[in-house]
């Protein structure tokens, strides 16, 4: 049996009605093993204006490099209370924010480890389907050998790496168009 996947449609401007109940900006409110990090940023459109109606979702492994998903068969420990999913809805300044734990490395296409990263899914009015991208961590030696980052043209890789803003605080902006346009994936 073979079916075709349902056609994606835009989230539209009224996403808050349906999605606000499950905003998760602190992924480890009860704490979890690992290095605490805050990630802050803005979503900016092709006119340089903040996007105030985007849903930014992150998905990540715990600090051991294990996803809290039945699809992850690795013999690594789960962290109780750490689901690895976050959802932030941008404010009038286009800003989103997460407090989380830096993920550990997870296996890549050839069994080699990937550099620590977050998977980011973006929905907003004007997008008929989601954008998918990744955030990598600054000062991370493993970035140089990451199998996914290496598929990205070298001059654009920096758009996927967060910048240090302060102690434990990282900044990463989503630029939808133009100079420094964020790399988005065909997923």
């Amino acid at each position: 049996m073979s079916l075709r996947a349902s056609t994606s449609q835009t989230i539209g401007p009224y996403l808050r009605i349906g999605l606000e109940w499950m905003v998760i900006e602190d992924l480890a409110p009860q704490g979890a093993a690992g290095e605490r990090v805050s990630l802050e940023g803005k979503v900016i459109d092709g006119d340089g204006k903040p996007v105030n109606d985007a849903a930014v979702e992150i998905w990540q492994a715990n600090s051991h490099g294990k996803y809290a998903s039945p699809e992850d068969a690795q013999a690594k420990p789960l962290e109780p209370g750490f689901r690895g999913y976050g959802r932030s809805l941008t404010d009038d300044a286009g800003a989103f924010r997460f407090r989380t734990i830096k993920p550990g490395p997870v296996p890549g296409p050839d069994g080699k480890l990937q550099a620590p990263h977050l998977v980011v899914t973006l929905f907003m009015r004007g997008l008929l389907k989601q954008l998918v991208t990744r955030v990598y961590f600054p000062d991370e030696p493993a970035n140089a050998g990451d199998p996914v980052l290496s598929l990205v043209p070298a001059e654009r890789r920096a758009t996927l790496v967060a910048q240090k803003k302060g102690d434990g605080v990282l900044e990463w902006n989503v630029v939808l168009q133009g100079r420094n346009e964020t790399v988005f994936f065909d997923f």
Partner: protein
Amino acid sequence: MKSIAPYRRPYWNTQPDYLFPKYASSVRRAPTQPLVVLPHTLSEVTAPVFGYDDVKPADSDLTRQHKGEPQGERIVVHGRVLDENGKPVPGILLEIWQANAAGRYNHRVDQHDAPIDPNFTGAGRTLTDAEGRYRFMTIRPGEYPWRNHYNAWRPAHIHFSLFGPAIVSRLITQMYFPGDPLLEYDPMFTCVADEKARNRLICSFDWETTMPEYALGYRFDLVLRGREATPMENRR
């Protein structure tokens, strides 16, 4: 390390492009640089799990969230969530939101001159059961104007958000109603070339689910991406 079976790529013309100028908001938000093809690693084939700690059974009845009954026609919307291989997708989170019977959203940016209904928020959620089934009780949403082009009106619709077993099977879409004369004018509904794909966004009237003297029934099945049958080595 065993290789991972990737998810199927979309069938030709069944998913929208980012840039679709008839939908004016896409022009300054669609990416302009080429997309980078993402291999499906463990990060892409996993997804968060939700359960009854997240969703209460009452969350699926949008007509009983306030003191009084909402205005409008009660409807049951139900269906199944399958993957492209025809397998039911159990235990996944569905979130819906919609306008009220007058075509007004309970949202600060909706300035349409139609009444807010104090007894209708327009949000619901549920989990699919072991056979991938879901069911909502709600009211039929109204059509409403928008400013995409001259005299533009959205057909009646309900927004659906779904989490599948993989982050790449995450889906947000809209459900439309059969026989709506606005469909052919709507740039959302017409955003894909494949007519069959478009028509799968329209629910069907379901007499079996219709509740005598209470509510009309509609059926809306959703299909999430499915995995390719055989793991392929070194896929890029």
